[in-house]
């Protein structure tokens, strides 16, 4: 049965594949245009490490004071833009903190 599959379908499938690749590369070009400093390895360890650290990081007075002592007169590093790396030196400041959670109530699915 496989032999009966026409040449046309094979060509069409190939065109589909090429289209797909084309679309992706176009989207990649768009992204690079907006964020020129983005590294070439998106799946690399930076992205993964960001993923491993998922979750809000709270203010730690120990870290904060040590960082302040290191930098002395300079300003603390400002909050990074979303697309840059989160490095170990990013000390959360009180401004970075998310709001505290509200108290626990019953689920609305049960109401």
């Amino acid at each position, binding site marked *: 049965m496989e032999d009966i599959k026409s040449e046309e379908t094979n060509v069409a499938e190939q065109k589909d594949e090429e289209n797909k690749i084309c679309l992706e590369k176009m*989207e990649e070009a768009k992204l690079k245009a*907006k964020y020129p400093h983005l590294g070439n390895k*998106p799946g690399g360890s930076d992205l993964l490490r960001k*993923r*491993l650290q998922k979750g*809000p*990081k709270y203010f730690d007075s120990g870290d904060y004071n040590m960082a302040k002592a290191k930098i002395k007169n300079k300003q603390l590093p400002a909050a990074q833009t979303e697309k840059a790396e989160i490095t170990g030196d990013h000390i959360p400041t009180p401004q970075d903190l998310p709001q505290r959670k509200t108290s*626990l109530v019953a689920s*609305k*699915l049960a109401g």
Partner: protein
Amino acid sequence: MAGVGGGNDFQWCFSQVKGAIDEDVAEADIISTVEFNYSGELLATGDKGGRVVIFQREQESKNRPLSRGEYNVYSTFQSHEPEFDYLKSLEIEEKINKIRWLPQQNAAHFLLSTNDKTIKLWKISERDKRAEGYNLKDEDGRLRDPFRITSLRVPVLMPMDLMVEASPRRIFANAHTYHINSISVNSDYETYLSADDLRINLWHLEITDRSFNIVDIKPANMEELTEVITAAECHPHQCNVFVYSSSKGTIRLCDMRAAALCDRHSKFFEEPEDPSSRSFFSEIISSISDVKFSHSGRYMMTRDYLSVKVWDLNMENRPVETYQVHEYLRSKLCSLYENDCIFDKFECCWNGSDSAIMTGSYNNFFRMFDRNTRRDITLEASRESSKPRAMLKPRKVCTGGKRKKDEISVDSLDFNKKILHTAWHPKENVIAVAATNNLYIFQDKMN
């Protein structure tokens, strides 16, 4: 239109919707997992607020033979609470990542629920009788003066209003450094696995102070990290076999008889890719967000960002079936990366006979594929089509050029309305679809 998942006369109809109607969605109400139990009698949901709600199907009544049993609230409880890791200054979310039922072995029901760090075994039991006529205390609980008791009586069991109680029977904690993404009950009904980004542990359901590490992909130097574990599942029949998927789009099947530490896989599933066709997005969109064995145990299904693939366990070099979920998003990858949607983790599920598969998409759309007829359908979970037993109309996204009536253009899709979690009743054509904070239940028209 002929339906998917059943015969030609098949049609999906609205059955129920649960949850608040208002537009303002509280983060805690966002449903994070949906799971039927083995019989389909119970349907559990977990949410970001750490709560579990269990629905039970009503017995079919003779008065209304046309409407299948509805699901009503059976029990609800707070499974997990927010915690704080003081050492790392990190908050541990109470969000329920997964719920997995245990097969029922007595009158009570058991389920496992997990957040990022801790798995809990919950017992849900019914109480419909209470003892009355105690000797040592009054009906209101006050102790009777023993010297006043002149005769003995035997307490009698009297019926009472049904009370459903949930109690935590086991707490499996402190075994995961990274965030738990999967739990899976083994077919031996004695053990289960839990997987985080870098490790998989095997537990015994009775033992909480010990767990075996069976997979560890943490590199000695974290700078060399190239992939993480995204999902894991036990084989439905072979208690020595499990699979885990990775962020690089590969699946490894492991056999626990081969070694204590299953770092070396028995089978490695990967679809070959032409290196020249790789783009910045290739690896991200190939990351597998869910892996599910078929009920038969012969196949497994994986979900990546744009497609669902069915693999034959006997063939490692490519999937046997590939279904496009929303191919039109390929031309939107740049903005989907910017708004983080490209990292959304969609789940997928099989129907009871493995003849159909279902997965979610954006705009509250969800897709079903019939493996036999190769037909597919897009449906929408929306309050607008929520009249009882209303038939669902198929939806279509138009990619460009002329938009036909009733079609929706790619640019009009609401990417905040994502359907990440769906579940299919193990025996019947009943499906549960979580749309943010609402739970929709759909059934087939034929009874």
